[in-house]
């Protein structure tokens, strides 16, 4: 006997997000790091800053840390991020 069953997954997708336009070059740009605050992010972002400055000519690197590592970034960080050319986030534990 055929059993007809229903799909259990979300078929109503979340609105989603659109990626920002890619930069053609990092030369002279300002790059922000949004850390989740965990210990492992420090050495990772330190090395990344060296690479961005020395290998890619990034002018400024700004470090910010979320107040809650399991929640989205704080509003004031997101406001500040609008002035950056690029952001690195979502890494580190």
């Amino acid at each position, binding site marked *: *006997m*055929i*059993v*007809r*069953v*229903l*799909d*259990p*997954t*979300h*078929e*109503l997708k*979340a*609105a989603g997000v659109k990626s920002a336009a890619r930069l053609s070059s990092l030369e002279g740009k300002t790059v922000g790091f949004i850390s989740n605050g965990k210990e492992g992010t420090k050495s990772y972002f330190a090395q990344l800053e060296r690479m961005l400055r020395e290998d890619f000519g990034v002018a400024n690197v700004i470090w910010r840390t979320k107040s*809650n*590592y*399991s*929640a*989205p970034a704080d509003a004031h960080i997101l406001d500040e991020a609008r002035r950056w050319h690029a952001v690195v986030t979502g890494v580190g*534990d």
Partner: protein
Amino acid sequence: MQGSNRPTLSSKTYDADDFVAVQELFHSNGWTDGLPIVPPTEAAVEACLEWALMPPDQLIGIEPVREQPITAEKLAVNAVMAGCLPMHFPIVATAWQAMMQEEFLLHGVTSSTGGCAILIIINGPVRIEIGANATFNALGNSDRATSVIGRAIRLTLINLMDVRPGGIDRTTLGHPGKFSYCLAEDEEGTNWQPLSIVRGIPDGLSAVTVMAALAPRQIMNEWTTDPKEILETFAAEMRANQRHYSIYGGNYAVVIPKQLRDHIEAAGWTKRDIAEFLYERARIRRKEWADVGKAAIVRDRPEKIHTALESPDHLLVVAAGGPAGGFGAVIPPWMGSKTKAVTAAIGACVDCEPPKR
């Protein structure tokens, strides 16, 4: 539901040859927790929705971080899979309303390496209606109702929020409560106020409390009748959690079965008295971290006192467990106060948000 006005289910359908084929379909798509499921047929899903008087497209809520809409139909599909009967479904739906409150931080709770489960505590008349057993084996396989309701929460997380191991769920270890973690309070076996009333739900209403919870840690003290001595054992377990896991304060639950509860009640202690005692006794100095290998993070604050509870209000005291045995359980929070337990009434407000806490 009968007649031509029956709301139409919108989920995609699949035809499987038989029961075994249904199992393989669901397992192979990553739609299960690894255990067999009940086939979610249209009739079974419609029965859940009819019981709850919810149309299929009723929006239960929108998960605040990933903005994922959660509808009654999709919750019902997963509840049926978990083994829920229609009468269990309103509890699942209410638990989801509570979980989607911002202070619960559902995304963090379900994605963290910390690996907590969502503990569901049921209060009120609905416990009787569904046959929940709040006594023997209360934190284990105590009864059908709590087993399937707890499992429904996990299946809905898997299928509606993509909380799969290695996907959104980045848990390092987890614990068995991630299959099902649900209990009812033994309101008939205590003179204490039910947890729901303590947390502001009017008397007579059924309610669900959700808490991001680690595994229960069992304690034993059957050598005293003094409430302070009994509760000192609970406090010691809370301090141990502060030392070994997380020093930061949050919602703890303590489950107190009948034998110890009778001693505490006989001495005239209320849940509030318990909470105030444990607030005072469950605290450590930061330098104690050095005793358990964590000297590196004591830093310049060795004498700073950390309380397990930010205030007595943060303790969830639950009367549950079998009649004999000097046991109890401490259920620690996932991670301090980053998440807050939320309590919501069942069916008391169909189209509105549960009360803010």
